[in-house]
């Protein structure tokens, strides 16, 4: 049997349309999922209501570091509506007090010996309703013996620092690991020859994904059948099922994980939190379904934070601005347990892609990770496994170089960008960039921005401000650039696994006899629009209308195994699986068409969802007709089974490498430090766009994240380790007022190895935009160095030449 070629991506204005007006493949299409959401009929975890369902609530530590002397639960147990009170001691008897993290460490489900961060789980109450459960928390008496806390990561390795993880045998310090990448000797050599070396200290402070829906679960252990059903906020239902089997010793075939509609994830819903396990334990103990939903403070204080990288970068260059080398030392604050969610072989995630989008031969990074008395996490908030930190580093370093050389940062970037003919490009730290035309993207962004005109405006404003009697309130104008390259779509299974699970994804496509299809996916949407996009992928290959293709996901009993949605991996991995499954359907349909039309497969040609006899287009069969024949009584050729189904596990050969050029224009009030984002221009290249509307929506959201991180989002701590970002009154998210009207552009460079040429895009803007905003603010202030977020206070301090640490409320 011959395999037909995958169709090339058409431009969206030429794509044929279905009877409902949808594109038969790529193109603008309204979302299938919206019908339920706009009617208030989305079905989220907190909407799950089961007969007899009980409610759980978690008592949390009020200390960052303390020994747990005693816990008295008697008053709580006496509460008339309380059904169970669970402590670490009880969990110890079930061997469940600790559970494995996704990084080879363990984390406490409920504290037994010590609490190690403010907000850590200490006890769990199950009651008839949530109000009573929370009342009962107040009745639990915990005696703590406070211990000194490690709050500042830069002091975690001091000789007198308290040992946080004395539960681990033989621990004498707070170091988790040292890790390095690149060629240190080559780097040193390049630095020795450089005309210019610029060093910079950068803090990428701790931030939080903060999806609008917090994390939660409803667990129901059916004691008769022995089946555990858990509705939960997870981006990775299959991985969670396997972990539950490993943690609790439950039989995996008796666990059903259902991830219904998810109110945003951004990496917050990759990890397995104690609350999920406690809901399961609560259901086992009480025999009833148990719901646990965290409140916003619990979400911000205890679940997966992001970043917390303290970086020292050094960039070497010639005097005319040709970059020669980049090296970086990172101190990574992982919190009290090493719970980062990333491929096993990459303890610092994909940070070592920090050489970015530029052409230079030498680079080296060394990462030291430490424990501190803070919540665990690190890889989250649309970070593409720490490429966010990498892009921030290189884009700030390039700007610092431009500052010192007094060169235009656009010109300096253009001078150093990789050239199209260098692809596929092997980076100095071992990444094979698949495709790109970087100068084109930067030129396009500069064209949309009117870059030269902006610089002229800035020069004239600065000249006016320098005049005697100039208006001291006149805003300071800043222009910032960033250029990013991401590697997304983890990943090739021989290199990438999580807890030993290879990062391949399954997909099943069934064409029913009447030509209506169901596509079952291992990945799980949290708003990315999979029900539409994946239908379009299948439509693109076999020509069925997208409205006739139902996408099924988020239920481990009804979908094939795979690692889920995070790291912008759904389209690169699962999208490829869907395309390959559709291709197999198309190939099989061809054989069936040949049998039905009594011709050779080689005599058949393909167009718009049908096979026809070359030279006689009237003799043909559509996929829908062939589906009926495949299920019918026609004698099929030997070796060809009936029905029209396909099942695929896709193991990506490489990551896909989306890229983009961003320009931000800000106006800073010199008297208040208030930053106003005037314009934001984003040119993204994620290959062909399956649904341009959805892609643009993904980019818009990521750009808002960039505004948030650069201007307002930070989880800081006081000297005792109290979390100071525990509500939306303290942890600020961007509103419609801080976000400008985004100006988007695009270039299209297909991925050569993806079956339909597409690249991931979900996190591109979150990864790429923060340095553009920061570079713009610093350009406005005409200052080289200061850390984000540029709240009015931070900006004002930077303007005064007294920048301060963003992550500590300690002078």
């Amino acid at each position, binding site marked *: 049997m011959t395999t037909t070629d995958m169709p090339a991506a058409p431009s969206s204005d030429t794509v044929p349309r279905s009877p409902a007006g949808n594109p038969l493949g790529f193109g603008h299409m309204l979302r299938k999922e*919206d019908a339920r959401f706009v009617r208030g009929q989305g079905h*989220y975890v*907190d909407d799950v209501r089961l007969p007899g369902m009980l409610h759980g609530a978690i008592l949390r530590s009020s200390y960052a570091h303390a020994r747990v002397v005693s816990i008295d639960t008697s008053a709580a147990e006496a509460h008339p509506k309380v059904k169970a009170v669970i402590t670490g001691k009880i969990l110890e008897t079930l061997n469940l007090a600790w559970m494995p993290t996704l990084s080879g460490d363990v984390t406490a489900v409920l504290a037994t010996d010590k609490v190690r961060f403010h907000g850590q789980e200490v006890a769990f109450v199950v009651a008839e309703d949530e109000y009573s459960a929370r009342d009962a928390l107040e009745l639990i008496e915990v005696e703590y013996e406070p211990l000194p806390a490690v709050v500042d990561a830069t002091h975690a390795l001091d000789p007198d620092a308290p040992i946080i993880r004395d539960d681990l045998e033989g621990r004498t310090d707070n170091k988790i690991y040292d890790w390095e990448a690149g060629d240190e000797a080559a780097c040193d050599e390049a630095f020795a020859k450089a005309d210019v070396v610029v060093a910079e200290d950068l803090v990428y402070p701790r931030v939080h994904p903060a999806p609008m829906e917090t994390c939660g679960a409803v667990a129901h252990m059916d004691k008769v059948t022995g089946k555990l059903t858990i509705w939960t906020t997870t981006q990775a239902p299959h991985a969670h099922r396997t972990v539950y089997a490993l943690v609790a010793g439950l039989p995996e075939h008796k666990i059903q994980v259902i991830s219904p509609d998810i109110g945003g994830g951004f990496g917050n819903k990759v990890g397995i939190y104690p609350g999920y396990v406690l809901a399961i334990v609560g259901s086992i103990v009480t025999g009833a379904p148990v719901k646990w939903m965290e409140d916003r403070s619990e979400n911000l204080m205890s679940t997966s934070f992001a970043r917390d990288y303290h970086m020292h970068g050094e960039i070497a260059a010639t005097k005319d601005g040709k970059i020669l080398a980049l090296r970086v030392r990172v101190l990574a604050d992982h919190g009290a347990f090493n719970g980062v969610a990333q491929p096993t072989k990459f303890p610092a995630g994909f940070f070592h892609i920090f050489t970015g989008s530029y052409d230079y031969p030498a680079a080296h990074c060394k990462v030291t990770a430490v424990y501190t008395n803070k919540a665990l996490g690190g890889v989250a908030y649309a970070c593409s496994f720490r490429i966010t930190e990498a892009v921030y580093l290189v884009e700030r370093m390039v700007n610092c170089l431009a500052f010192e050389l007094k060169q235009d940062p656009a010109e300096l970037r253009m001078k150093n960008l990789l050239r199209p003919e260098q692809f596929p490009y092997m980076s100095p730290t071992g990444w094979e960039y698949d495709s790109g035309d970087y100068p084109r993207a930067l030129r396009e962004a500069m064209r949309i921005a009117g870059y030269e005109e902006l610089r002229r405006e800035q020069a004239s404003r600065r000249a006016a401000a320098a005049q005697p009697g100039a208006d001291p309130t006149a805003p300071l104008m800043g222009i910032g650039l960033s250029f990013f390259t991401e590697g997304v779509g983890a990943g090739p299974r021989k290199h990438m696994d999580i807890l030993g699970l290879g990062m391949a994804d399954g997909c099943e496509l069934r064409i029913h006899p009447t030509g209506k299809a169901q596509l079952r996916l291992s990945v799980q949407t949290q708003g990315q629009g999979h029900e539409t996009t994946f239908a379009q992928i299948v439509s693109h290959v076999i020509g069925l209308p997208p409205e006739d293709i139902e996408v099924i996901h988020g239920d481990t009993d009804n979908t094939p195994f795979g690692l889920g949605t995070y790291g912008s991996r759904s389209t690169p991995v699962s999208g490829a699986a869907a395309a390959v499954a559709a291709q197999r359907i198309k190939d099989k349909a061809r054989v069936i068409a040949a049998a039905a039309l009594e011709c050779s497969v080689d005599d058949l040609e393909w167009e718009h969802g049908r096979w026809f006899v070359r030279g006689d287009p009237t003799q043909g069969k559509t996929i829908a007709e062939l589906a009926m024949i495949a299920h019918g009584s026609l004698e099929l050729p030997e070796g060809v089974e009936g029905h029209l189904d396909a099942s695929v596990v896709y193991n990506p050969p490489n990551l896909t490498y989306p890229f983009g050029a961003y320009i931000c224009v800000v106006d800073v009030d010199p008297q208040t430090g208030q930053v106003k984002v005037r314009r934001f221009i984003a040119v993204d290249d994620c290959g062909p766009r399956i649904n341009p509307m959805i892609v643009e929506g993904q980019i818009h959201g990521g750009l808002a994240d960039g505004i948030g991180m650069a201007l307002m989002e930070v989880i800081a701590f006081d000297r005792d380790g109290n979390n100071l970002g525990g*509500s939306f*009154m303290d942890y600020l998210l961007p509103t419609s007022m801080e976000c400008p009207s*985004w100006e988007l552009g695009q270039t299209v460079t297909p991925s050569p190895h993806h079956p339909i040429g597409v690249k991931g895009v979900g996190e591109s803007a979150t990864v790429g935009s923060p340095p553009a905003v920061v570079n713009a603010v610093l350009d406005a202030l005409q200052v080289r160095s200061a850390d984000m977020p540029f709240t009015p206070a931070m900006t004002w301090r930077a303007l005064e030449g007294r920048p301060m640490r963003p992550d500590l409320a300690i002078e």
Partner: protein
Amino acid sequence: MRVTLTVNGAETTADVEPRLLLVHYLRDVLGLTGTHWGCDTSNCGACTVWLDGVPIKSCTTLAAMADGHEVRTVEGLASEDGLDPVQQGFVEEHGLQCGFCTPGMMMTARALLDRIPDPDEATIREAISGNLCRCTGYENIVRAIRWAARHEAERTSEEAAV
């Protein structure tokens, strides 16, 4: 205590704890789960509903405070004729992704258009500034509301022509 609320035009009554929040009355007593809870502190607006025609945050309103009053939720937006133009606008302009903030956002938007039928971008942005969205970057929400305004204006002029 006993409370009686008119919700989406229908009278509802229940014995509730005095401390019961309106959002929980709607979700747990009435089963109207289209109204979401997101933050506890009136910041996020996922819980926005109307109280006597004015958008309020139902996570910081007691059910008792709504006793004897009229509440409208997302479930009361569509009519027998179909979706409200605001709902249709959110579909047409991709004004939602995960859908969690959407009901509250649409209730705010509907109230805005009832007050100001043809708002400009700045007016829209100010009106929705008490509703957080983590997915869309707000751009398409603004467009969705403008879509609704435009289509309502067209509908009004068509009706006037008839």
